[in-house]
């Protein structure tokens, strides 16, 4: 059978028969995490080999083994953080020339505005790093690691509203129903850890609460892939993984006794009816039992040094903060989790942008830089790809009232900034150029399909060949598009 048209419906049986020689454990883990490595005892697989995944993958030698994706939901303003436009200072409150907008559609939140007055950024920019990249004063810490980043100023998309845009960048389609990037990687490459899921999602609080543009289960969903590839949310309150703790009154010893008996009865039944699903289920229970230990160990940061904690800033000790999640992302990376996605919301600054972006940058700046430095110190930046950015950018023209100190910006899909760092990416470069208004791409456009193709490439995956047959068609993350951006590869 062609593995690319593998069906979720028969997966466990296939694994069982394919790997019967390594015994029951192999069959079971195949269903969530891939086959067990003989000899692997705990945590990350010793030799770096992966479990599960498709035959023939990676397609070529990967530069990165894993991705940490810092997702800025709501769309941060490239104009106030990365895309320096000094000429705009002379354009304060002047109208955006029609020749720049060129009839491009804009959202109905501002399409009714009588004017499109230019709002230059009020933030100071300076050159940083050996290559002299322009970075805004909002990001002093990130500016300090800019030599490790590949900053892309020309990312673009077609979607102009949050729901379709974030669905698009995460799944390659504006409409619900397709697998997310992490699910594709779990499906294609499998896991590097037998005790943890391949794809983990972390949600960050802002000032102790959530809020901001909505997120959707589909953003880490498996679409038409097997549900075992969907992202598992690691929560900062309650059980880190849903239903992880034994109920009150049931000690670990009582649990063990119950599982032993369950195991015995299941085995007896297997002997009777011969259904390999029973063997698989036996092993899933063992795996669940192991997760009851491995997950709390993962989230316990008491063995981190003070120096490390200081690097991430004071918020790092508060579970659920962006700082805490960046540290957790590093710990997940250490344990071989293939794809960790950290979400932080409240970047949707239609009004009061200066005040709100200061708050947001104050939250993310230090932890972002700390994550890069921490990975680097541990020698992990070489094979970890870190991605930063949102679902689109923001307009040069003001939404709502414009003053010298206050303005808002609407959604802008035609160019925005993201940065990549680590595994496989050229450090210390700025890629792509936008026009004076940061409205149109002037050179080296990077469509979000190109970006996703590049992420897969860094993990040794040819984006055109990681496909899944569904409804008669071979689907892929990049639909029928996408070009790897070779210029930014190391």
């Amino acid at each position, binding site marked *: 059978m062609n593995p690319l048209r593998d*069906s*979720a*419906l028969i997966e*466990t*049986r296939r694994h069982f028969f394919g790997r019967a020689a390594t015994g029951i454990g192999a069959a079971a883990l195949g*269903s*969530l995490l891939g086959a067990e490595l003989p000899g692997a005892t705990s945590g990350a697989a010793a030799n770096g080999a992966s479990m599960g995944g498709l035959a023939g993958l990676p397609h070529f030698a990967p530069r990165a083994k894993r991705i940490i994706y810092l997702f800025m939901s709501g769309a941060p303003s490239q104009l106030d953080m990365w895309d320096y436009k000094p000429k705009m200072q002379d354009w304060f409150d002047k109208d955006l020339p029609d020749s720049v907008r060129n009839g491009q559609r804009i*959202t*109905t*939140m*501002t399409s009714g505005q009588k004017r499109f007055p230019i709002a230059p950024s009020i933030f100071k920019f300076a050159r940083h790093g050996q290559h002299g990249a322009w970075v805004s004063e909002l990001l002093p810490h990130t500016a300090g690691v800019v030599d490790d980043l590949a900053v892309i100023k020309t990312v673009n998309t077609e979607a*102009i*509203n*949050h*729901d379709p845009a974030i669905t698009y960048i995460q799944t390659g389609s504006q409409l*619900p129903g397709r697998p997310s990037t992490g699910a594709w990687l779990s499906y294609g490459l499998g896991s590097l850890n037998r005790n943890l899921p391949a794809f983990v999602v972390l*949600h960050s609080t802002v000032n102790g609460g*959530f*809020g901001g543009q*909505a*997120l*959707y*289960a*589909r953003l880490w*969903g498996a679409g038409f892939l*097997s*549900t*075992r590839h969907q992202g*598992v949310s690691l*929560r900062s309150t*309650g059980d880190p*993984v*849903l*239903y992880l*703790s*034994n*109920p*009150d*009154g*049931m000690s670990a010893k009582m649990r063990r*006794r*119950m599982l032993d*008996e369950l195991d015995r*009865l*299941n085995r007896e*039944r297997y002997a009777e*009816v*011969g*259904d*390999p699903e*029973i063997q*698989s*289920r036996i092993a*899933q*229970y063992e795996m*669940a039992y192991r997760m009851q230990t491995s997950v709390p160990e993962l989230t316990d940061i008491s063995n981190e040094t003070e120096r490390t904690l200081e690097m991430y800033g004071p918020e790092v000790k508060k579970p659920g903060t962006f700082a805490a999640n960046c540290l957790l992302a590093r710990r997940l990376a250490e344990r071989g989790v293939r794809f960790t996605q950290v979400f932080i919301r409240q970047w949707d600054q239609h009004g009061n942008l200066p005040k709100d972006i200061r708050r947001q940058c104050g939250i993310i700046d230090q932890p972002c830089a700390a994550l890069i430095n921490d990975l680097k110190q541990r020698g992990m930046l070489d094979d970890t790809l870190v991605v930063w950015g949102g679902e689109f950018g923001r307009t040069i023209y003001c939404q709502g009232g414009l003053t010298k100190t206050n303005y808002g910006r609407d959604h802008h899909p035609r160019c925005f900034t993201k940065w990549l760092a680590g595994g496989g990416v050229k450090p210390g470069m700025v890629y792509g150029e936008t026009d004076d208004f940061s409205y149109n791409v002037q050179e080296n456009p990077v469509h979000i399909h190109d970006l996703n193709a590049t992420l897969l490439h860094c993990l040794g995956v040819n984006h055109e060949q990681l*496909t899944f047959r569904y*409804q*008669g*068609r071979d689907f892929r993350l990049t639909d029928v598009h996408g070009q790897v951006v070779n210029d930014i590869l190391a």
Partner: protein
Amino acid sequence: MTVSAAVGLFALPPDVCAERPLDFSRDILPLLSENCFQCHGPDEANREAGLRLDDRGGATTKLDSGERALVPGDSANSGLYARISSTDPDLRMPPPGSGKKLSDAEVARLKTWIDAGATWSGHWAFEPPRRSPPPSQVSGWHVENPIDLFIQDRLREAGLQPEPAADKPTLIRRATLDLTGLPPTIDEVDDFLADTSPLAYERLVDRLLESQRYGEQMARIWLDAARYADTHGLHLDNERSIWPYRNWVIDAFNRNMPFDQFTVEQLAGDLLPGPTLQQRVATGFNRCNVTTSEGGSIAEEYYVRYAVDRVETTSTVWLGLTAGCAACHDHKFDPLTQKEFYQLFSYFFSLTEKAMDGNALLPPPSVKVPSSLQAARQRTLTGQLAEVEAEIETAISQWKYEDPLAGKPLDPLAKQDRVWFDDALPPGAQPAGDGPDPWKFVTAPDHPVYSGANATVRTGNGLTQHYFTGASEPLIVGANDILFAYVFLDPKDPPETVQLQFNDGSWEHRAFWGADKAHGAGRNNPSNLRLGDLPRVGEWVRLEVPAAAVNLPPGSKLNGWAFTQFKGTVHWDQAGIVTIAPLGPQQAESLAAWEHYRKTVKHPALPADVQKVLDVEADQRTAAQSDQLLRYYLQHVNPASRARFAEPLQRRSRWQQELADLEKAIPATLVMEERQQPRQAHVLERGEYTLKREAVESRVPEWLGELPAEAPANRLGLAQWLTRPDHPLTARVTVNRYWQQFFGTGLVRTAEDFGLQGEQPSHPELLDWLAVEFVESGWNVKRFLKLLVMSSTYRQASRVTPEKLAADPQNRLLARGPRFRLDAEVIRDQALALSGLLVDEIGGKSVRPYQPAGLWKPVGFGGSNTSVFKQDSGAKLYRRSMYTFWKRTSPPPTMTAFDAPDRETCQVRRARTNTPLQALVLMNDVQFIEAARKFAERVMTDGGQDVEQRIKFAFRSVLARVPNRSELDSLKALYEDYRAEFASDPEAAAKLLAAGESPLDKTLDTGELGAWTMVAHLLLNLSETVTRG
């Protein structure tokens, strides 16, 4: 077909496939489709080298190169064969980089076919199904109905033998779970075992098909296809009300509505002549799609997206075709052109719905769906209201009224103080101010009091105040009115400033006396006006503020008032407004006097239409207007007539209120409705809503059969076309889904795709036989399902030998009974049923059972009405899982862990995975722990007295079968261990037994109940329990 070759059906392992004659549709077309059509198929715009291989004419045409791809009977001169057999990578087809590859056997098969004359036929699924006679019986094998003949014929070919029938406990558990989604009770099992007649099984099946639970089970599966959910799905993901549609589906299955009618009503119930309410409710099927109301969205884009979704869904469910591919270009594999896609799209493009759902519970169009009780009460109240209206009408017309002041000059309106605040705050007002207890009331004689029992006092060291807001009866400002308050300054500790502030929604209305040190200092304008020096100390002084001077024009409504000072000690008392005195009783007897008064003093409760008439000068009014005014006056103002009307008016208002409450309580549901003026559909280039090309009308792809002669050019016509008895797809696709439901896998494994890229049927003749049987029975669903479950194929034992497993791991040939994991909902419902907690009620609004805290918050939009999960309690915790509130952007985790689809798009086939997260749910979810403890109570109460009896009771409740000796011993030992454990740690037992909200049976021993809970918990976790074997 006469040629014979070894052909591997790619769904089946080679060794179970016998030698059989080559069949173009089965053996050749899939190879061409898979390997060639991407570039040489129906998609004209992307066709390479001018060659098309999806029809025989194209394949045999001479190409520009002079070659012919296909020369029937002559592979040596066929370009097709030359290219697929070439070793030159530049010539080889499919191209090496394409990811596609023909095996040597497949190349050989194509050669055999060409040399035998390259016979061509259409794709099997696009030809109407034909009933072929069932194969003859294999001697000695048991047959119940023709299904078995088809299945056993293939088994014989493959050298496999069927299994004997499963034992009776297994059979009843299997059939009950399949047909009702619930396990059989011990009594039901005992009845079945006791019925030794040969008809026992058939009687069981008949009973199950008549159970109301049958409709729920069938509806649950249909709702995956309908993408049913309780929220809109996009952006805010607010709640929507469409559960009456779910009720309709349950009811349709329970009433055994024929499938053609089921189809017509859901797709086009609104277009039937004189549609009933229920027929309109049925159209909710195509209002289940996800919708948005995200700020900034462009309506035109979403009209297109919704219509595309409806075409895709309709096409997946009835045609088994992946029409969505043709939204952007001609279909790569199937003959569906892009134009045909937009002709289908046109059927769904002319609805009255708005692109933006408004985040509303009921984005129109919707209909109210009263229960029969509600409808009856509605009729009664409407009748009673008509009666009382008539009574009032008659009385008014008979009332003789003469205005005592008619023609006389009217007295000017007198002004007087209206006190708003004295000893207590006005109704609804919220006291506030500086300090912990800001409103300090004091009494005489120790303190100065101006009027009533008390005054307030405040001492401060700077700017300080007490105030209230939120008065429910606002103080209405009239023309030239004056606001006032009484103040007493302490001679020993005078303030530097006193200030009054008034709130009409904002506090920007202030006046002060003394130094400019209070709120809004430095302005001296209506937002803080200086009205003089400090009043004299040691006596009560009346402070007056002309309302207009602080920017409070007539009609302003005050809800709050602040008493403010800078330093010192200040007493405040009585405050209010100098305004026009109310109408006296004598004046009220005159219509003219009342008019005069009401023209000046507006009354917020006066009906708007009466106010409008009042605003017209008396001599300008029409007779109708004068009459209207008089009627209002008589009913509500004139003391004598008012007394007469009080009782009927009260009655009327009581019934009106009841009717309004009733109507508010009547649920409503989203439906389809056609626009008066149809919206023109166009072919959209690359599916982009902005790139409109050729205009198209509603039409079906007629290569699948013509539209019936009478069919209208709307959704009703589409539905009539789909349910043509000879439609090639509708019946096949439908019976295949039913087969999948009862046998785990469809005869066509890809239940959603019957096109060229779909999988071949494992038993094509059986599929056709079933399709024809279904249509000829009048699309009778229950009759059809009975046929499936009565077959000996269905009844086989499901145990598997290593040999059979190796020969047919997926059990496609059914040499053993089907065996698969239960669906998410069934796993939870089974636990609820065993615990005795399950609620029997059918249908109704969705409920919110247990869910771990904090799942919605991290993803929800702040303004969404589903960003906070509020758990239900009581009976709502124990309803069947199909009634669990389905929030699309964060669906119930116990459901998705067991592969329930997300309900964002149409799904006709669920995955079945086996993961540790599932183990964690069954191990630790409070729902399952609570179920175990309530089940344990039943075991102790109903399961007999000794331990073995109880174990048998528990075991049989879960699995229907009796435990064997080893199982019994094992559970007994487990029970004894836990019993000892809890005896030494009773607190642990108490904690375990606290799981869930249902009350604990306190008459039972805690330690014992704890131990039985653990036994029950183990039983609920058995692999066999979550499997239907």
